[in-house]
């Protein structure tokens, strides 16, 4: 009897005890893809010896997994694109505040959560792309103006299901009010030259091929396509320079509520805001570093400088649901 119990215990130990976590590792759940995060994590491991383990997936499932794991958490950090997603994570109560003088110094406050639960790491502008063959830059002015009649049948958009468009709409509601924004969205939908696309690259390709003349895209997609096709007949335009500025969103990282290695995780985030990490992190995806002391890559700098919207990016999250409902009503699929 005793022997059997001992055997059972030994068996149980071998089965259950395998999950003991080492202190010199950090675990990240990321919706930023492998090739855009691995270089940074590899650099950190080379520098400090701390291992960074990660899995990639879409935001919503990752957040649900963190929530489900609860106190038995595996993940220390949640890395996502779009402030809207980080705000949602905050609302779900799966993050915890962490203060750090290093992060406060490196990242401007508009790109951080007001409750200190997450910080931005890189910035991307969602801006207007136009055909150099058929549009003069003087014809362009603001996002709102793309709803005017003279753009009828000339506009290309990505699907409203993408959070980038939801965040853009959310900030427009914040600035212009709901009624005016809905009118603008209806104008955009009316001006579409073809059904909305499933990604930004397709929008740029359509402008290049002559299916439409203008579109709204994230800057790094332009960077990627331009690298492949240097003779692209498409350029970027910075709208709303006379008023609020270009819509800027971010890729950011938050500390999970029950992070098993909170100190190691914090150290990693702090390092990720330093110039060394910032230029790798933004560089691999042709984004703008969130740390203003770090210059963007030459390619990114060649698009010209612009005035960015100073609205705290959290607004995108707060008004996301409202934005989706409005886009649905306007018929933006």
């Amino acid at each position, binding site marked *: 009897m005793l022997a059997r119990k001992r055997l*059972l*215990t030994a068996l*149980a*130990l071998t*089965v*259950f*005890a395998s*999950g*003991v976590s080492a202190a010199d590792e950090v*675990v990240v759940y990321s919706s930023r*893809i*492998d*090739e855009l995060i691995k270089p940074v994590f590899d650099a950190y491991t080379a520098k400090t010896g701390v291992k960074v*383990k*990660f*899995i*990639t*997936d*879409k*935001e*919503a*499932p*990752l957040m*649900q*997994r963190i929530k*489900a*794991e*609860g106190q*038995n958490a*595996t993940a220390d950090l949640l890395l996502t694109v779009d402030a809207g997603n980080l705000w*949602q994570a905050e*609302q*779900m109560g799966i993050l915890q505040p962490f203060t750090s003088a290093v992060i406060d110094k490196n990242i401007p406050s508009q790109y951080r959560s007001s409750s200190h639960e997450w910080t931005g790491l890189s910035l991307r502008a969602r801006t207007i792309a136009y055909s150099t063959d058929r549009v003069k830059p003087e014809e362009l002015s603001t996002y709102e103006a793309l709803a005017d009649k003279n753009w009828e049948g000339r506009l290309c958009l990505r*699907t409203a*299901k993408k*959070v980038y468009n*939801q965040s853009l709409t959310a900030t427009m509601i914040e600035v212009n009010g709901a009624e005016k924004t809905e009118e603008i969205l209806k104008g955009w939908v009316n001006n579409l030259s*073809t*059904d*909305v*696309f*499933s*990604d*930004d*690259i*397709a929008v740029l390709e*359509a402008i*290049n*091929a*002559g*299916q439409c003349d203008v579109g709204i895209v994230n800057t790094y997609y332009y960077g*990627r396509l331009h690298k*492949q096709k240097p003779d692209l007949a498409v350029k970027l335009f910075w709208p709303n320079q006379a008023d609020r500025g270009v819509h800027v969103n971010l890729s950011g990282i938050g500390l999970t509520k029950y992070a098993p290695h909170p100190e190691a995780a914090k150290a990693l985030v702090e390092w990720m805001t330093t110039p060394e990490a910032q230029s790798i992190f933004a560089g691999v995806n042709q984004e703008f570093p969130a740390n203003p002391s770090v210059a963007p890559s030459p390619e990114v700098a060649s698009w010209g400088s612009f005035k960015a919207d100073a609205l705290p990016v959290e607004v995108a999250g707060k008004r*996301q*649901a409202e934005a*989706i*409902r409005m886009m*649905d*009503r306007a018929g933006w*699929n």
Partner: protein
Amino acid sequence: MEAAVFASRASPLPHSFSRLPMHLRELFVAHPAQRRWYPLVFVIAALVLLPLSVLLLSWQSIDTQIWSHLWDTQMPRLLGNTLTLIVGVGVGVTLLGVSLAWLTSLCEFPGRRWLDWALMLPFAIPAYVLAFVFVGLLDFAGPVQTLLREWFGMGLRLPRVRSTGGVIIVLILVFYPYVYLLSRTAFLAQGKGLMEAARVLGQSPWQAFWRVALPMARPAIGAGVALALMETLADFGAVSVFNFDTFTTAIYKTWYGFFSLSTAAQLASLLLLVVMLVLYGERRARGASRASNERPRVSALYHLRGPKAWLASGWCLLVFACAFVIPMLQLVVWFWQRGRFDLDERYTGLILHTLYLGGMAALITVSVALVLAFARRQAPTPAIRAGVSLANLGYALPGSVLAVSIMLAFSYLDRELVIPVSGWLGGAGKPLLLGSLSALLLAYLVRFIAVAYGPLENSLARIRPSLPEAARSLGVSGPRLFFKVYLPLLLPGTLSAALLVFVDVLKEMPATLLMRPFGWDTLAVRIFEMTSEGEWARASLPALTLVLVGLLPVIGLIRRSAHRIG
């Protein structure tokens, strides 16, 4: 012209027992023997019920704001789209699958011998891959239209690719192999005697097809169409490339946009209800039609000549070209332009992980499905039948919804069962299920059990009860009966089932993404990462690798699963 007449004539053994009416037969069967199946079947059903109950629990609170918004602005359009898609794909896969299976299994025409297995190859291409290849190739900015514009000028307007018709065609090309594979096996198993008897009795080939072959193959065709339609209902990847909004789109939108998982789960459970009705309908329509087994046909029944032969070759070639050759060529072109620069030593790991997961999942899923199929045959009590139907439901749910339900269920088990038990035994008190390989394999099991069950049930149904009875009367029973009598007869069906599950697991994305252990990236994960960034050309590398990895078993197994000599 009744099937049973011929079946009984061909049978060397009397089987008066099996001809007794069902309710009388049940009187002869010992109930304790039937009950032996209960625990096994119920455990399997519970495994599937666990994630499904997560869906049901979501009804505890209803977010009226989201519901009324969806109802006012989205539902009429989404339901209309979904219905169009289901009807279009359903009709399309039936026409394509049955006509191709008929031609390759009963006729002889130039190229038949290789088209016979080649027509199965499109099964190795995931729906989302075919979708992005077609859109990339044929959309306005794609190479085809660009070339046409260069020839004929900007004024040229072609039919839109990203349209209802486009998405239906792509899904038909991707899902017809389900119908093809199952009806081909059924046609081959019908044997020579039946169709020749039909001919002797003065039936034309068409009449023989309509009045003999088709009715007998109906269960198999029905099972194939049901699989194709469940895939269609659950598909999110392909329809989102086309930006074609279906009911499943609403589920994802509610979760990813409104972050209301409970509303998404409510929508998903409604979808499940529809699928249950469809499956029930399919079972009912199948009715009393019974398949029989005979010796496989040795030579072709119809030797097509002249224009008929060319038409047959042309039809098969057309489908093969559209569903396989053209997409593969486009992938190869993209690979050469962009994908090859990403190729590094990490691909070895990706391929090995993919193969391991596919192989293990196929093994486990087929074994479990075999248990279910036997249980339903040996003990068709209402309880067993309900349990088996329940276990088959996992396939119909959109992958992500099922994945998250399984994940929630496992984390619940971890919290309530694994951790307390391990703590009590002096262990570390750590979660064991979530993030482990076994959890991922269990998730595959729940999702794909229906895929394995269909072919197994069909081939089991073709074994007349008289056969094992005779074996028993000769003193063969237990494991020996299974290995000596059943398994050889079930081999084609088992291989088909294993092939379907293996390839489906290779292509599976949401559960793999959400539940894979650290470092267990697969080819599908890489495709997800590339396509989520709109990098279709670069996704060619993992996509091409995935198709090639999936091809080997497809070729190998299709040739062994059921073939005609000569």
